[in-house]
């Protein structure tokens, strides 16, 4: 089998060569250092490093909070996408542009701002404290921070699909006697579900690795509010490079699995997955 399909366009060798070299130097080489460092541990040591109680707690917190935040984003994102696509109101263009703010804003800025807003004497925090709700230094704070940074994902994946929905089908459903809610549940929702799932997974993947937005609000208490990336930094601080690398490998494996999952979802939906 040929390596490359015949083409008269020039520049293949040059561009591919540059691309491959660049990728190797900047991506593959450093990542392989990670793998090599981890392989220096014996299997026993590796398992110990990634299953010690602090690590397990950190995975629980990181993945747990990310999951909840992604669910919240699925709901909020769907709402926002729906409103932006289907309705007209003043300020719509502004809101549409602003949805990307969590993506454009540096994580450290988001971090200190959220920590300050939700602290006991912050603008929002002081309203919640009398109700007994504490945000900073609790998993709730982590969830809120992760929800903030994941906001654009679901919106931006669902928006185009909603945009492209043909009104004919909805009209047909309507003319057959279905109410709006029924139409939504049985006609519209299945169409946007793959996009929703994709957005959810993207938000989830992003949240799992998030560092800057979370460490200011989280409290960083081992076993309770210590996220996995912070644990890696701590291990580095304690000269435990191999341990840090081992935990990093576990996180990477989880992220890659997520990416794979996302592309399967797309393939499945493109080939006609969810049909009523």
């Amino acid at each position, binding site marked *: 089998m040929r390596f490359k399909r015949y083409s008269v366009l020039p520049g293949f060798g040059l561009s591919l060569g540059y691309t491959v070299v660049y990728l190797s130097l900047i991506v593959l080489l450093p990542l392989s250092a990670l793998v090599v460092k981890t392989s220096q541990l014996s299997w026993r040591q590796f398992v110990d490093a990634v299953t010690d109680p602090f690590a397990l707690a950190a995975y629980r917190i990181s993945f747990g909070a990310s999951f909840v935040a992604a669910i919240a984003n699925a709901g909020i994102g769907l709402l926002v996408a729906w409103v932006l696509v289907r309705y007209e109101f003043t300020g719509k263009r502004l809101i549409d542009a602003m949805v990307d703010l969590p993506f454009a804003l540096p994580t450290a800025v988001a971090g200190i701002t959220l920590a300050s807003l939700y602290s006991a004497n912050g603008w929002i925090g002081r309203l919640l404290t009398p109700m007994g709700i504490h945000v900073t230094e609790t998993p709730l704070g982590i969830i809120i921070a992760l929800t903030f940074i994941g906001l654009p994902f679901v919106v931006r994946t669902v928006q185009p699909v909603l945009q*492209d929905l043909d009104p004919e089908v909805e009209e047909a459903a309507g003319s057959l006697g279905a109410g709006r809610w029924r139409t939504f549940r049985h006609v519209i929702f299945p169409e946007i579900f793959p996009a929703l799932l994709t957005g959810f997974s993207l938000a989830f993947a992003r949240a799992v690795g998030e560092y800057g937005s979370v460490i200011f609000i989280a409290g960083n208490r081992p076993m309770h509010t210590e996220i996995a990336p912070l644990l890696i930094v701590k291990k580095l601080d304690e000269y435990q490079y191999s341990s840090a690398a081992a935990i990093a490998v576990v996180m990477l494996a989880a*992220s890659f699995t*997520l*990416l794979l999952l996302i592309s399967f979802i797309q393939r499945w939906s493109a080939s006609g997955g969810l049909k009523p």
Partner: protein
Amino acid sequence: MSGVGGLASRHATQRRAGPSEPAIVRWSLIGLTLVVLVLFLFLPLISVLYEAFAGGVKVYLNALRDPETLSAIKLTLLTAAIAVPLNVIFGIAAAWSLAKFQFVGKSVLLTLVDLPFAVSPVISGLIYVLLFGAHGWWGGWLDAHDIHIIYAVPGIVLATTFVTFPFVARELIPLMEAQGSEEELAALSLGASGWRVFWKITLPNIKWGLLYGIILCNARAMGEFGAVSVVSGHVRGRTNTLPLHIEVLYNDAGQFSAAFAVASLLTLLAILSLIAKSIVEWKAAQAGQSTVAPEEMPLSLVGAAAPAGGANPRVDPAANRAP
């Protein structure tokens, strides 16, 4: 169901209005959305400004004029000035080879390009410490030759380059794929050289996508925190970028307002980036070049590596001709 020739840009023609919900439902949903977004988006923005000026205008200006802040600004600008052009060149090269040609291993490369989105920023920094740190692979050699990468500027630039390299590529690959090669081939057959084709045909066609990618790449490069935090030495006035400097100020006694003052600079950058993005999207829609990939969506989903049977309803080659 959406036709194959669906619209690519969400700012394109309005969809024909179908049946809708009763007004009360509509307005409740709009209201709910506004409440949520005000709470989540606008409130943080306002609080940054408020806290920045809470100590008075004088404190604000002093914070920005402080030598450590100035050197943080310089370092941030320097880092972006190196990382962004590097990644632009890479993006163009990657897009050219991946979009215009078919070859074995294409999807592997596409996945590699998407890699940084799957990697936590902390890990992105960790891998460079493992390579170049004093106890890393080349630590000994580097130290012997007095070359300092980790805890010095080169390490910061490297980590930033890693984290931001996909942005330009991800904009260009689907775009160039959607545009096809007819124009380039036509020009070639008329006798233009390879470079001429690139400069005169390809580049103008992708200019809005390129600009879009640069804006995203730059915003991320200037705002990166986690990766840089791991490789920087946090030496005030020397190896602190603006985001790191914000952390330093936030943790300093009596510098709370100063932290937000510096944060307001980056916030301004974020808002400018958003505005620039909107302008580019609008211009691109006008010119018929849509910017296709939404933020952080894996390339494999945006059509470049879509399976043969699945029509991607969002990309319409016919809609993407430069005038």
